[in-house]
């Protein structure tokens, strides 16, 4: 009998343990087409993807010692979008499916519980779903490759592997890190405000190259500058804390992995304002060089080992899942998110096969607010436009205002969209 369940990957282990009664860790990828979405065709496309992406059509189950993912017998039903992205995924929902497929007007969106995959895996799933939809709707033939998986083939084993286990160093790197400044505001209890800034990719690239840094470093520097201003306005200098941006690093490129499960780690990069003022140029250079120095296969292998080694301890493996949840919760509360102010998750530039490109107007990537901080930022470039999605679970829009205003000051045109009514 074929195995119909998976262990959670090393990164995915933490998410069921730290889920709260009104918060769970999920992300969203969406594609906007050139015509309104037909729900019946989308449903057929979603059903067709099941054999190729078995690790996405799963339910979250609790074993005696670990959570695990089991193939879901329930169909993932496509449904209309809500007023805001990434609404709460309850454990009752996760026991049915860990995946949502949503549509609204011209947009197809996939929301995914983070234990299944990360942004890169999710975007491959979305692009394949959109490709299948276009095939069914218009009779197109879309060649597989790149972001579109081949539906005629079963998933290769390396797509389902936990690549963390294969690439851990023998010795773990230290997790110790100074706590960073905490963003805060008036909570909105459920509603998430999404502000999307649409920016010409070439303008961003030109500005980054002029400063000899990457686009991610440029955006992180602008964000750090905005947060430094926010902190300076409310906290005396001596009590200020470091401002660090959490940047996820896609490890597939570093280790040549093809996994569709989670395979990324985060780095907290930034500056301490108590040591002096920083210009945008300095912030950009500091963050760029910190990123270059840290995102090496050797350094990341040490960080992977820090996550892998505890789960290989026999004592911990034999600890009941409830106790593990409690311990992981406490560890996460103490150190999980304290190192950074917010995430900037950049999926980079996504290329689609030519027949699809004519029909896909926009691709977007959105990560939800973290457990302990209310703002997050995610970036994806497609077709010459970069969509910078800033999500928040608080009322105040000051961070978004500062961030996008700084981009405008740099001569980068920004077009703003918002889901707030």
């Amino acid at each position, binding site marked *: 009998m074929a195995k119909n369940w998976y262990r959670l990957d090393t990164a995915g282990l933490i998410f069921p343990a730290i889920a709260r009664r009104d918060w769970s860790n999920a992300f969203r990828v969406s594609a906007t087409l050139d015509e309104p979405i037909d729900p019946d065709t989308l449903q057929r496309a979603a059903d067709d993807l099941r054999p190729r992406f078995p690790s996405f059509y799963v339910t979250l189950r609790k074993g005696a010692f670990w959570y695990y993912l089991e193939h879901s017998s329930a169909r993932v039903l496509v449904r*209309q979008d809500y007023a805001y992205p990434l609404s709460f995924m309850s454990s009752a929902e996760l026991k049915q499916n860990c995946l949502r497929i949503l549509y*609204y007007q011209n947009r197809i969106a996939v929301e995914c519980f983070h234990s299944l995959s990360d942004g890169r895996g999710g975007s491959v799933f979305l692009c394949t779903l959109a490709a299948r939809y276009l095939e069914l709707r218009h009779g197109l033939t879309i060649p597989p490759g790149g972001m579109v998986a081949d539906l005629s083939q079963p998933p290769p084993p390396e797509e389902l592997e936990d690549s963390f286990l294969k690439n851990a160093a023998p010795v773990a790197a230290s997790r110790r890190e100074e706590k960073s400044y905490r963003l805060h505001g008036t909570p909105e209890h459920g509603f998430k405000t999404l502000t999307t800034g649409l920016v010409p990719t070439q303008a961003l690239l030109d500005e980054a190259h002029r400063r000899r840094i990457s686009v991610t470093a440029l955006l992180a520097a602008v964000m750090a500058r905005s947060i430094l201003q926010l902190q300076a306005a409310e906290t005396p200098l001596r009590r200020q804390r470091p401002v660090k941006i959490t940047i996820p690093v896609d490890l597939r490129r570093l280790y040549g992995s093809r996994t569709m499960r989670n395979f990324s780690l985060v780095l907290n990069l930034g500056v301490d304002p108590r040591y002096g003022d920083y210009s945008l140029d300095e912030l950009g250079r500091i963050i760029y060089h910190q990123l270059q120095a840290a995102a090496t296969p050797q350094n990341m292998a040490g960080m992977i080992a820090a996550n892998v080694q505890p789960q290989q301890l026999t004592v911990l493996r034999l600890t009941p899942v409830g106790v593990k949840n409690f311990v992981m919760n406490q560890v996460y509360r103490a150190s999980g998110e304290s190192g950074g102010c917010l995430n900037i998750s950049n999926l980079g530039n996504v290329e689609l096969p030519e027949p699809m490109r004519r029909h896909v107007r926009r691709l977007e990537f959105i990560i939800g607010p973290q457990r302990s901080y209310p703002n997050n930022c995610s970036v994806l470039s497609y077709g010459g436009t970069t969509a910078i999605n800033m999500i928040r679970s608080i009322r105040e829009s000051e961070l978004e*205002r500062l961030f996008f205003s700084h981009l405008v000051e740099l001569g980068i045109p920004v077009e703003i969209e918002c889901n707030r009514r």
Partner: protein
Amino acid sequence: MYCVKCGVKLQPGVESCPLCHTPVWNPEGKTEEKRYPASLPERTREADLSGAVAFTILSAVAILVTLTVCFKLYGALAWGGYVILGIALFYVLAVLPRWFRHPRGEVFVPVDHAAAAAYVLYICLKTGGHWFLSFAFPVIACSALLSTAMVCLLKYVRGGRLFIFGGFLMLCGGFTVLVEFFEHLSFHTAMFRWSLYSFTGFFGAGLFLLIVGMIPSLRSSMEKRFFF
């Protein structure tokens, strides 16, 4: 259309800039194309009844064991009544609200006090005491009144938290004096042995909160230093 303050380009038809909330002049009267529908998801929270079920089973087992032991050893309830009613009181206080998706404080606080009063009444009757009506009942009734008022104010009055908490603390100070007064009536103890100390502490803390609430600059300075 552009925001005159932020310089960002805006969607046609928006009434104000989503970043700085500056009103936008819309001379052509265009309507905004909504990127998301108006429908909100159903507010879901985990029902999480596992704790309630586990406690219910544990309580039932504990009561059964107590009954068995008492009737086997003494042929009567004996001390089992204290244990069983104690478990029942704990159940009402800690487990009963867990069965409800949205437990209402203004209902459960008086219910909890009523349960406590019933338990105390049982002890009074069982021990042949005469202190329930003169001491325990008025003390529990005052506590119920005070805490229910606090819960209702916090729930139904928007803002003014500092005044509510300040007032509550001052009333708590008064309550301690009242407790000592009822103690004096029931057990003929001397007045003002301890309650003045607690009254001073509670009253001072409450007064401090009221002052902080009344002075905006002090309030914002405290907020800045103590936010969490």
